[in-house]
């Protein structure tokens, strides 16, 4: 039995929402970052599904670029978190609050 393409899109939507909600409710910078990665992967799933649906390769090419960018973002993000941890010894985003309006 073939799985209909809509199911993939629904799954991608669910994953994206889990990621977005996770970013909003988590307080740990690392977990927030993981949730962002989840969102990007949900986007990848959507791209691959659409690519299959449209019979064009553009979407799959796009996925490669997203993965590359996500890797670059991971490098920079973890470095930033480490730099902060060296100075403050916390990665709880509630404690990172010297600047407020």
């Amino acid at each position, binding site marked *: 039995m073939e799985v209909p393409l809509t199911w993939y*899109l629904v799954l991608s939507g669910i994953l*994206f929402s889990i*990621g*977005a909600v996770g*970013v909003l409710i988590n307080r740990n*910078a690392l977990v*927030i*970052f993981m949730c*962002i990665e989840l*969102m*990007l992967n*949900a*986007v990848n799933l*959507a*791209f691959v*599904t*659409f690519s299959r*649906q*449209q019979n*064009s390769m*553009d*979407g799959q*090419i*796009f996925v490669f*670029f*997203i993965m590359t*960018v996500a890797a*670059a*973002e991971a490098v*920079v*993000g973890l*470095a*930033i*978190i480490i*730099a*902060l941890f060296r*100075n*403050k010894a916390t990665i709880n*985003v509630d404690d*990172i*609050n*010297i*600047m*407020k*309006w």
Partner: protein
Amino acid sequence: MEIVIPPFDLKSISPIMSISIAAIFILLIDVFFRRTFKDRLGYISFLVVIATGFVVYTQIGQNVYSFSNMFVVDNYSVFFNLIFLLSTALVILMSDNYIKQEGVNYGEYYTLILFATVGMMLMAGGADLLTIFLGIEMMSISLYVLAGFTRDKLRSNEASLKYFLLGAFVTGFMLYGIAMLYGATGTTNLKEIATFITENSGQLNPMIVVGASLLIIGFGFKIACVPFHKWSPDVYEGSPTPVTAFMSTGPKAAGFAVFLRVFLVALPDLEPKWSIILWVLAVITMTVGNLVAISQTNIKRMLAYSSIAHAGYALVAIIVGGEFGIASLLFYMLAYTFMNLGAFAIIIVLGKKGEENANIEDFSGLGYKHPLLAIAMCIFMFSLAGIPPLIGFIGKFYIFSAAIKSGFIVLAVIGMINSVISVYYYLRVTVVIYMKKPIREFSPLSLSPLIIVAIIFTICGTVYFGIFPSKIIAFAQQSAVLY
């Protein structure tokens, strides 16, 4: 199976290539010849930027699509590239002394600035959502690092982390929007998306509407318009001052370049829908930016809110669209680059090591102690407030007259009321400079010949193009056609 390699035109991306190669070489020079070239990396990158400016200048008048319609060179992208290079060159001049004084004189600083410039140029010339996405990410990732460049300072770390987490979060939304548009139209090319929508205008796919809204979120974050602006005051305050100056001019202009190109080239048929959304965004952006700026005590934070308000004025230009709207946006971005970089240069000069003199009260008595700097600061503040005959006035005048010509009278009136509100907090700086006694001794200025050149250049630009704007306006009007 035969594989056909599509033709590519390296000439069209020659400015991008020259800056990328220079950036890589600067990194290598820093690794291998650090002792000899440590203090000269800034000069090298400055010369490269100027040389690239000439290359870009020769591209005026070309209308070329290259790399299988992924990239476009037209007068619009050339004008924006010149703005980016101007902003990069001035920021390099301002940084040289600052990063030595703060003890972060590493070669990667210039590399990152140059790579951010490459990203901005890709954004301005992107004719496909893929190129645009790559450009945005290239610029943003460089800026995340630059924001945290003084890595011993907690403020800088915090700015960097906030910028990074929110930026990556919003990237997710923007990508989902791109995926939606791709799913609905089967292409990521801007022109082809427009053709598809025109051909199937009978039944408008809701996915296109959702995709366009998600793109508004993504681009709105990059240009810091309300309600996607919460990152910008914190990031502007915490970042090293030259980086703040950079972020508020070049990348912001790049955000507008992309915003306008995507919405006017790919989604012109949806204009009645998105122009209402942008109308509301423009009004709340101007109003919130100006009202919150009034209560700020830190000058970098005040300029952050002022920059949000200016994004609101510039959004008016996108809503107006057409030749006048585009030309006024181009002119406004150039004007904003001159006056904002000038104001930040003065803040850098007054700062001393580890302490940035960033409170507005710290400027009190400046008029007696350093009269020339005080006059310069006043010129920039007057220009930002939009007082004639400076460049900021011409920019605002041009946008609002374009709005009135196209029938957006309410919008123009709201813009002007906001412009009047903004006079209050810009003039407060000049009042503090001239009418208050100094609350403490001024530390010796951190002047270097380079930053003096930058200040003189920005003053000349602000005053000269304010009095004789016709050449730039003519050039902006020539550039106002999206090829």
